[in-house]
């Protein structure tokens, strides 16, 4: 994958529109940034004939700002960012605004950043779906007073906090009323799958009664499943996920994973690129119908908000239908039969 | 060159009953040595006898296991080279210990730089270093700012000697100072050694060269396998007696009592076929 910014920005694209700069955050918190978003955004901008420079900061705040500096000095008309944290995000947005550049917060809201527009899935909602998914799977297993372990995302990632906020809002009442027992609860630095494996192995060693795992994304989920498989407990202990990766979907098909959260990234990307294209062509966007209140500054930001979808074995085919994952990738070798069983043709 | 001083009553530096082991290996056994002001004491002994170790014990590089060091009549504890320097003991080590990444002047003034306010006084140091080296017959140094890493063996040795004699010290110990020196430089160093003693300092000279020992020393102390074999006036012994003391620890009525090998160094390998035992 590569960006389309192949000649240096003189300011005007082929269709008389200005150039758009996009900064994605990392590749570690989720695979989407390097695969899905990049592709969809690129396609959308190419289709509209708008020049775009799309870069990834690799989780490095300094790099994030350096990229922004570069885009600003290259003369972009619109800057779309997925911030790594609100502080750097705000610094970048402020600098862009001073340079007279239109700004879009993509996927993550920059607190007090005062971006012109905001496009996102609701991350707390993602967490809620995960929590609900786990509740459903545990209900299906009919465990009484199951111990639930939580494998949170990176402690340095603000989104991980939002996800946790979401699933804890579902699970905490269950803990308090005694339906579930609260098990170990740990963060995985850098969303590192290897460390996740060790962390979960130790959770299981110290509490053999774990009956459900709330894993914040598919990578962490897979790490937990690996440990469960070693103990032949896979399939009996429901594990959640997020991102609808091939790995996660395969684990769902195999019955090892209970659910994942599919964020129709294409929709999000399309919504954001429409905004950006309009701004680049110096038109007033019409799609931002909603608003989001910045909890810090209290300002209302014009927004496009999308809803995430919970995916279980029953609706894996929806992801295929959306072309988010191809059948060839998913239904390789031993999964062919499982795919067929799940109604994927 | 040698003059006759009345021998002073008390030694300036006195070492008594020093033991030193490295792990399981005992290198010094109950060693004693007296250094008198105004005299050159030659310390002789075979390779590996323990001369350098003794020097390092005195200068605070090694800590002694037991025994006492008396300086100027007071018992002292020398734990670091700083302590030794504070007492006025200056040493030229056999393994010269120069900083290869510094130049000649920087090495000579290391640890005692001249300053003006906060700033190093390079001109003064350069001047003093030049004067001292010139007095030691150094003629082939390309520049006083040459790194010592690029000096020849003899040049390094001269720098080390010059470094030790720059200071107003009371005891100067030189461990094989002339080993790498040329003919002229050797003569200069021996003359310097004599001059230091004549100025009232206590000088210890370690050397394997008997001519040098007899040329400048007033007393000779001999070590044999880590023990004091004898400490005598140079004028009382002959060349061959000293050699005998060095190689077998005894010479006539001088030296150690007849040996019992198992008593000496626990694990000495006698490599000469038919040697000890």
């Amino acid at each position, binding site marked *: *994958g590569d960006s389309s910014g192949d000649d240096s920005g003189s300011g005007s694209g082929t269709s008389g529109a200005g150039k758009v700069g996009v900064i994605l955050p990392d*590749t*570690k918190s989720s*695979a989407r*940034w*390097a*695969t899905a978003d*990049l592709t969809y955004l690129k396609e959308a901008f190419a289709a509209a004939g708008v020049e775009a420079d799309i870069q990834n900061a690799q989780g490095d705040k300094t790099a994030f700002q350096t990229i922004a500096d570069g885009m600003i000095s290259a003369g972009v008309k619109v800057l779309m960012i997925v911030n790594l944290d609100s502080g750097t995000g705000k610094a970048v947005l402020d600098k862009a605004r001073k340079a007279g550049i239109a700004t879009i917060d993509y996927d993550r809201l920059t607190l007090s950043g005062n971006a012109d527009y905001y496009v996102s899935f609701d991350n707390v909602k993602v967490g809620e779906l995960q929590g609900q998914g786990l509740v459903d799977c545990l209900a299906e297993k009919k465990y009484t007073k199951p111990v639930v372990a939580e494998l949170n995302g990176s*402690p340095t990632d603000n989104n991980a906090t939002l996800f946790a906020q979401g699933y804890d809002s579902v699970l905490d009442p269950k803990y308090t009323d005694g339906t579930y027992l609260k098990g*170990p609860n*740990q*963060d995985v*630095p*850098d969303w*590192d*799958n*290897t*460390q996740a*494996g*060790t*962390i979960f*192995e*130790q*959770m299981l*060693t*110290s509490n053999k009664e774990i009956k459900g795992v709330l894993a914040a994304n598919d*990578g962490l989920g*897979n*790490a937990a499943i*690996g440990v469960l*498989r*070693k*103990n*032949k*407990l896979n399939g*009996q202990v429901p594990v959640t996920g997020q991102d609808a*990766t*091939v*790995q996660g979907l395969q684990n769902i098909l195999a019955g090892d994973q209970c659910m994942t959260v599919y964020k129709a990234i294409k929709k999000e990307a399309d919504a954001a690129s429409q905004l950006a294209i309009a701004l680049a062509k110096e038109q007033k966007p019409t799609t931002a119908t909603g608003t989001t209140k910045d909890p810090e500054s209290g300002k209302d930001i014009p927004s496009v908000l999308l809803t995430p979808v919970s995916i279980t074995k029953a609706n894996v085919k929806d992801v295929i239908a959306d072309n988010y994952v191809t059948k060839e990738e998913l239904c390789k070798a*031993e999964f062919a039969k499982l795919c067929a069983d799940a109604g994927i043709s | 060159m040698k003059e006759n001083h009345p021998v002073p009553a008390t030694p300036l530096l006195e070492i008594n009953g020093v033991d030193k*082991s*490295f*792990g*399981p290996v005992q290198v010094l056994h109950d060693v004693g040595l007296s250094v008198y002001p105004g005299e050159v004491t030659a310390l002789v002994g075979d390779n590996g006898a323990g001369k350098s170790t003794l020097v*390092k014990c005195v200068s605070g*590089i*090694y*800590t002694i296991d037991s025994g006492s060091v008396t300086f100027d009549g007071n018992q002292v504890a020398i734990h670091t080279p700083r302590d030794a320097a504070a007492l006025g003991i200056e040493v030229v080590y056999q393994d010269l210990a120069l900083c290869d990444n510094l130049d000649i002047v920087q090495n000579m003034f290391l640890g005692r730089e001249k300053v003006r306010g906060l700033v190093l006084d390079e001109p003064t140091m350069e001047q003093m270093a030049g004067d001292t080296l010139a007095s030691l017959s150094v003629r082939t140094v390309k520049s006083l700012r040459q790194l010592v890493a690029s000096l020849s063996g003899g040049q390094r040795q001269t720098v080390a000697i010059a470094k030790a004699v720059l200071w107003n010290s009371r005891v100067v110990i030189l461990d094989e100072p002339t080993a790498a020196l040329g003919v002229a430089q050797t003569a200069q160093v021996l003359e310097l050694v004599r001059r230091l003693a004549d100025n009232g300092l206590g000088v210890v000279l370690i050397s394997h060269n008997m001519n040098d020992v007899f040329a400048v020393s007033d007393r000779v102390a001999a070590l044999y396998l880590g023990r004091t074999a004898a400490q005598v006036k140079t004028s009382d012994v002959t060349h061959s007696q000293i050699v005998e003391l060095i190689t077998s620890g005894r010479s006539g009525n001088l030296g150690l009592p007849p040996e019992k*090998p*198992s008593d000496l160094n*626990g*694990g000495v*390998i*006698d*490599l000469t*076929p*038919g*040697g*000890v*035992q």
Partner: protein
Amino acid sequence: MTTQTTTTAGGVTVVKPTLAGHLHDYWGRVRGGDLGSLPAVLGLVVLSLIFGVARETFFSPLNFANLFTQGAQVIFIAMGLIFVLLLGEIDLSAGFASGVCGAVMAILLTNHGVAWYVAIPVALLTGVVIGLALGVLIAKVGIPSFVVTLAAFLGFQGLLLVLLGGGINISIRDEFVISLNNNNIPVLWSWILAIGSVAGYAFLQFSRIRARAARGLVTDPLGVVALRIGGLAVLVLATTAVLTQERAVNPAINSLKGVPIVVPIIAAFLIFWTFVLGRTTYGRHVYAVGGNQEAARRAGIPVDRIRISVFAIGSFMAAIGGIMAVSRASSVDPNTGGSNILLYSVGAAVIGGTSLFGGKGKVINAVIGGAVIAVIDNGMGLMGFSSGQKFIFTGLILLVAASVDALARRRAAGAGTR
């Protein structure tokens, strides 16, 4: 103390070795600061006790078995790093090199459906090629290893992303590869291997004595040899006894016993590389170049080739570490070999007693140091701290383990061998 002497080959008279003499010498060496890996082992014991008291599950057979599989990647990488460190060089890229090699294997297995007996050798070869390239840049072009491997650290991180198509995870399903760092050897075979290895060691010891005696050289007293063999036997057999216990979380569902497969693999590499370093010309030359490169060059040792070779060994072992990591996670992601893996590996080597300045170190250091790291990681996992606390305590514990070592060695300063 009176010592008996004896005569050995060449008419050389030496002190006759006795058991008492050996012990006395050892104590003298310890007092003199020559401690070998004793402090690290001590640190290991202290740490285990602390964790064992804090969480009783720490001493369960299940947790004990986990230790090996959790520590495998670091131990393998550290083993390779020992060679690099022996030369006073550093390899910052070892972590991501292991990730790249693991990814190569995973891609071959999963995306190309290749068999494990092809995928694994290709991954190992990738490791060797990486090491050779690094070595050539360092030895022939003359760029400092820190810079070359820093560049490689960045490069491999990128390569891993590119190989994984920009950040997706690749799962592996190959039973053989997964078994490597997950499954166990059957109980019977566990015992056979354990007893066999002790017997083999005893045989080697005695045949060495016989050979030396035949040449009229000094031999170790029988008591010392018996102590050594006995020590090893106790260690190996006790470990085997624990690991052959049933340790499944739910024995009704699944039985889990036997020595983890990774244990004999570690042991094999430990023995092999110890042999190479201690008993071959190559190993001797590695120490020589590390101790004094100029002296080695003057002795006619091909310094450049030695330098290249250690990087090849380093990356080869990193590849094995990568394979183990992929096996354990049954998947590879852009962070495999990243995070703290590299620092942990170098730390393992250094804690085990290897010097960063070259010339001093043994392969066993990697295993002991790796064990310290694994115990800390494992114990911290049981404690249930928050991430922040976990980092802090990990740091503190590392410090404590290292202090045991440092304080024990401080006597060395008195002996002038600092």
